[in-house]
C-alpha cells in the first residue's frame, strides 16, 4: 500500500499537482480526483463508495486514537467500524483495570484522578508515525502523559509547572520525535503568585524531551497559546493565540480585530539555551519572548480569535481556522525564514484568507490538495481546495466572492468540534475516511436522559463529495483523534508483557515478613493463585504483588480483596502490586475478577487477619 502511495505522490508531482502548483494555479479538484482514482483502485476501494462495514471476524484498516476529554482517558477505536476496542486510563481512576488502585499507577497519578485530555499525537520518524509512543495533554492538572504503543498503556506522566490550561500539544515530525510541544491556554503569573493585575500574566510554550519525559525549556509570551502544530522539517512549532489582548473577561479577549499565529523558531530556541538567555523559574529554563523582543517568535496577524492550526501533509501551509472570523488563514511555511530574517513582514506569510462558513474550528487534509474544515455554527464540514483558494486571492475580491475553492459542504449532526482524516497529520495522508467529532447528539440516538452522548460521524472522503456513512455514540467527551493505518501500529503491539521488565515479577509465591511489613508474592495461573491462604495480623502493612504467569494471549486475571476496596487486572506476564493496611480482623476472600477458566469462580484464596 505504501508503495502505491509513493507512486501516486510522484505521479502528482510530475503533473505539478501535489501542492507545488500554487503558482500555476488552475488545478481543478476534478483533475486531482481523476489522477487519484488509479491509486484508490489499487488500495482496493472505489472512489466515493467505500464500504465501512467490517464483518464479524474481520479487522479494521486503521487504529483510531481518541482523547477522552474530561473523562481523562484515551480510547482506541477501529476505523471504519468505529468500534471502541480499548480505553486506556491515563489521568483518571479506572477501577476495572486497577488504574489508580495499584502502587505503580499511584506513583504516576500522585493522588489526582481528574484529567482533561484533548489532543493525542503519535511519535514520528521521517514525517509519519513510527508506532512507538502516543502523547496526550491534561488541560486540568497541567500534565503531559506518554503511552507506550507496544502495550497501549500509560508509561509516564510529567507535571508541567509555570503553565495553566495545557491545551494544544504536538510532536516533532522530522527527523524524528525528540521534542513534544504544548501550549498554555490560560495566562498566569510566572512563577504563579496571587497577582490580580493581568499585565503580569503570560502564556507559555513548553518543549518536552520525548524520550526522557523532561522539560527542555519554556518560552514565555504575552498572548495565550491555544492549539499547537509542528512543521514537517523539524524547524518550527506553531500556536494560535486568541487572547493577544491579555484579557481576563470574554469582552476583553474579543476586543482586537486581529490575534496571532505564533511561530517558534527551534534553531533560535536552541541558540538561546546555548547562550544561556533564560531564567530558571521553578527549576525550568524560561526564555522571555514577551513584547516581541526575542527574535525567537514570529507573530503573524490572523483574524480575530482563531482556533485550530493544522499543517498540510505536503508541509507547505499552516492553516488557522477562524472561529469568530468565517475564514481560514493560509500561511506559507517557505516564507517564514524570510520573515524571521526581516526580509518580509510577518503578514506577508499569509497567502490566502478563504471564506469557509460561520465558526470554522479545525482543518484536516485528504492528501490530494484539499482541506476539510469543521464549521461549528453552521454545523458543516467544508471541503475546499488550497491551491484554488490561493489563486482566488491573487485574482482579487470579485473572484474570491464566487468561492471557487469550495468543493463540497456536508451538513453534520450536530455542531462539529474537531475533524480528522486518516493519516492526515502525516506525509502519508490518504484521504479515505473522515471523522467529524460533533459536540451535540440531541436526537440522533435513543434518549438516555438529559445528559446525552456525543455523536461522531464517519464520512467517506474518497470521492469528490463528502458522504456521511455512520453515526457513532461516544461517551463524554472526546476532543480530537488521529487515525493511523494498521500496518504501522499492529506489528508493534504485543500480546504479553516482557515479564522481567518489572523487577517485582513473581515466579514463585510466598510471604515475607519484616516486622509489621508483609509482602505477599502471588503467581496467578488459571485457575489458581500461588497461595491458598495468607495469615496476617491486624495492623500489618501488606503489599500484594501479583504476576500473571499465564502465557496464553488475552488470558488476564483479576485480583480483588473482599471488603478492602482493592481490584486490579493483570494481563499475560504483567505484574502489579497494591499496599494496604490490614485493619479489619476476619476471613477475607481474594478472588479473580477477570473471567479466566471454567473454574474461574474457584480461583480464590483466604486472607486470615487475626
Amino acid at each position, binding site marked *: 500500500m505504501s508503495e502505491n502511495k509513493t507512486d501516486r505522490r510522484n505521479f502528482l508531482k510530475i503533473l505539478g499537482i501535489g501542492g507545488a502548483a500554487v503558482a500555476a494555479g488552475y488545478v481543478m479538484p476534478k483533475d486531482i480526483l481523476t489522477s487519484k482514482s488509479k491509486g484508490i483502485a489499487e488500495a482496493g476501494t472505489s472512489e466515493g463508495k467505500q464500504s465501512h462495514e467490517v464483518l464479524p471476524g474481520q479487522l479494521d484498516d486503521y487504529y483510531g486514537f481518541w482523547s477522552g476529554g474530561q473523562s481523562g482517558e484515551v480510547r482506541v477505536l477501529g476505523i471504519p467500524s468505529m468500534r471502541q476496542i480499548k480505553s486506556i486510563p491515563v489521568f483518571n481512576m479506572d477501577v476495572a483495570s486497577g488504574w489508580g488502585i495499584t502502587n505503580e499507577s499511584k506513583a504516576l497519578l500522585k493522588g489526582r484522578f481528574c484529567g482533561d485530555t484533548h489532543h493525542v499525537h503519535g511519535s514520528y520518524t521521517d514525517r509519519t508515525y513510527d508506532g512507538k509512543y502516543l502523547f496526550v495533554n491534561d488541560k486540568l492538572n497541567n500534565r503531559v502523559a506518554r503511552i507506550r504503543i507496544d502495550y497501549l498503556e500509560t508509561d509516564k506522566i510529567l507535571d508541567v509547572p509555570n503553565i495553566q490550561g495545557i491545551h494544544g500539544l504536538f510532536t516533532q515530525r522530522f527527523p524524528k520525535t525528540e521534542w513534544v510541544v504544548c501550549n498554555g491556554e490560560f495566562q498566569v503569573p510566572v512563577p504563579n503568585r496571587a497577582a490580580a493585575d493581568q499585565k503580569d500574566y503570560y502564556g507559555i510554550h513548553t518543549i518536552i524531551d520525548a524520550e526522557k519525559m523532561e522539560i527542555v525549556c519554556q518560552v514565555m509570551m504575552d498572548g495565550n497559546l491555544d492549539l499547537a502544530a509542528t512543521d514537517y522539517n523539524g524547524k518550527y512549532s506553531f500556536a494560535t493565540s486568541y487572547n493577544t489582548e491579555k484579557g481576563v473577561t470574554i469582552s476583553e479577549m*474579543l476586543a482586537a480585530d486581529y490575534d496571532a499565529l505564533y511561530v517558534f523558531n527551534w534553531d533560535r530556541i536552541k541558540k538561546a539555551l546555548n547562550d544561556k538567555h533564560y531564567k530558571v523559574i521553578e527549576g525550568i529554563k524560561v526564555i522571555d519572548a514577551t513584547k516581541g523582543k526575542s527574535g525567537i517568535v514570529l507573530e503573524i496577524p490572523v483574524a480575530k480569535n482563531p482556533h485550530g492550526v493544522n499543517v498540510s501533509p505536503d508541509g507547505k501551509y499552516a492553516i488557522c481556522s477562524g472561529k*469568530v472570523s468565517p475564514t481560514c488563514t493560509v500561511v506559507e511555511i517557505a516564507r517564514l525564514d524570510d520573515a524571521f530574517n526581516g526580509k518580509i513582514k510577518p503578514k506577508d506569510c499569509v497567502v490566502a484568507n478563504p471564506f469557509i462558513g*460561520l465558526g470554522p474550528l479545525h482543518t484536516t487534509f485528504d492528501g490530494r490538495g484539499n482541506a476539510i474544515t469543521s464549521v461549528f*455554527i453552521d454545523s458543516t464540514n467544508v471541503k475546499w481546495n488550497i491551491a484554488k483558494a490561493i489563486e482566488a486571492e491573487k485574482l482579487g475580491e470579485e473572484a474570491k466572492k464566487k468561492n471557487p475553492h*469550495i468543493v463540497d459542504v456536508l*451538513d453534520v*449532526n*450536530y*455542531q462539529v468540534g474537531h475533524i480528522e482524516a486518516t493519516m492526515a497529520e502525516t506525509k502519508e495522508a490518504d484521504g479515505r475516511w473522515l471523522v467529524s467529532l460533533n459536540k451535540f447528539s*440531541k436526537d440522533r440516538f435513543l434518549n438516555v436522559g438529559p445528559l446525552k452522548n456525543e455523536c461522531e460521524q464517519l464520512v467517506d472522503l474518497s470521492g469528490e463529495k463528502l458522504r456521511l456513512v455512520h453515526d457513532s455514540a461516544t461517551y463524554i467527551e472526546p476532543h480530537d483523534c488521529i487515525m493511523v493505518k494498521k500496518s504501522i501500529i499492529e506489528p508493534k503491539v504485543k500480546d504479553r508483557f516482557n515479564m522481567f521488565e518489572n523487577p517485582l515479577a513473581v515466579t514463585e509465591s510466598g510471604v515475607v515478613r519484616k516486622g509489621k511489613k508483609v509482602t505477599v508474592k502471588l503467581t496467578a495461573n488459571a485457575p489458581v493463585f500461588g497461595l491458598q491462604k495468607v495469615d496476617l495480623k491486624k495492623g500489618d502493612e501488606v503489599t500484594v504483588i501479583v504476576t500473571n504467569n499465564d502465557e496464553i494471549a488475552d488470558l488476564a486475571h483479576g485480583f480483588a480483596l473482599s471488603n478492602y476496596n482493592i481490584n486490579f487486572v493483570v494481563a499475560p506476564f504483567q505484574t502489579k502490586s497494591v499496599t494496604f493496611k490490614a485493619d479489619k480482623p476476619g476471613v477475607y476472600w481474594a478472588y479473580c475478577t477477570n473471567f479466566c477458566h471454567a473454574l474461574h469462580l474457584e480461583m480464590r484464596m483466604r486472607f486470615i487477619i487475626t
Partner: protein
Amino acid sequence: MKKIIILFLIIAILVPSIAISGSYSMFEHRYEYKPNDVLNADNFKEKTKYLEGYKNGKLVGFVILSKDWASKHVGYSGKHMETLIGIDTSGKITGVKILFHSEPIMLIGLDEKRYNAFINQYIGRDVAKNLSIGKEITMDAITGATVTAVVQNAIISESSKRLAYVTGLIKTDKAANKRTIKDESIALTWDELKSIGAVKNIKVTNKELGLTDEGNFVDLNFGLLTPRGIGENIVGKEGYIEASPQKNDGYSAIFITSNGSGTFKGSGYVRGGIFDRISLEQNGVVFQFTDRDYKILSDIKAVGAGKIKEGGVFIIRSKDFDPTLPFKFKLTATYRQGSVKKFESFFADYMLPDKFLK
C-alpha cells in the same frame, strides 16, 4: 409605549443626533430611538400598545414596538429582538429599526450592517400580504444566521399583522364559528387520511430548486394529531396519549414527516433550540417550534404509510391556536447551490376535515 414619548422628548430637547448612538456590551446591543425613525410624522398620539402618527393633522400611520405584540418570539439568544415598526394607513411598512438584540452571530460572526440590510427589505411591503423568507424576503445578507432571520421575520410580520387587525387595515374573517373536536377513534389507512385531507403534502424535487440530484428534495407530510381519529392512526394509541391535549395543557399537536435529500429539521434547533424551517400561521399569528415542543417520530402506524427519513411530533404551545380553524403550514427549504446557501418557502393550507368536528 409611554417610554417612547419620554425618550423622544428628552432626545428632542437635548441632542437630536444621539438617536443614532447606542449602548453596546459584548453580549447586548441596545439602540435609542424616536418614532420618527420609522414613520414620517410630526405628531404622535398614544393608543393602547401603539402610536398614531399625524402629519399636518392628518393620520398617516402607526408605530409599534414588537415586544408589545409578539414578545413570545425569541431568537438564538433566548431573548426577544425588540423592533420598532412603522406602518402607513395603506398597510405598507414605512420603517423598521432594531432596538435591542443579543444574537450571538450578529455580535461575533456577522457584521451588524448585514442585519440592517436584512430588515430594510421589509420597507414598502404590504403587511396584509405574505412576508415570507424565501419568497418576499431573502436571507442573502445573513445566510448563516437562519434562526435569527426566521425569528426576526416572525416578529415583524406578526406584530404588524396584529396591528393591522386592530386598526382595521385588514378585516378579520369572523365567519368561522368556534367548533369542537370529536373525541372518537376511527380506523383510517394512510391513503384514506390523505384523501380526506387529514394529512397534507408538500413535495419539492431537487430539479425545481435547480439542483442536479435526482429525486425529491422533500416529500413532506403533516397533519393535526389532536383529533383522536387522526392521532391514533398516525402515532398509535400510546403515542396519542403522549401527544393529546389532555397530556399537554390543552395544546394541540401536529406531526411532520419527510423523505428526500433535504431536511425540514435542519440543525438550528440543536444549539439555538428553535426550528427555523417550519412554522404555522393562523389569523396573522405565527407559531414556531422549539426543542421543548418536539419529540422525534421515526415511524407512522397507519397502514400503507411506508418508511420515513425524518419526523417529529410538535406541540403548538399557544392559546391563540385554534385547531378547528384553517391555518397555513410553511416550510422554508434550505439548500445549497454549490457553496451558496439558498432559501425558498413553500406553503400548504390545512383545515381539519368535518369528519373530526362536532
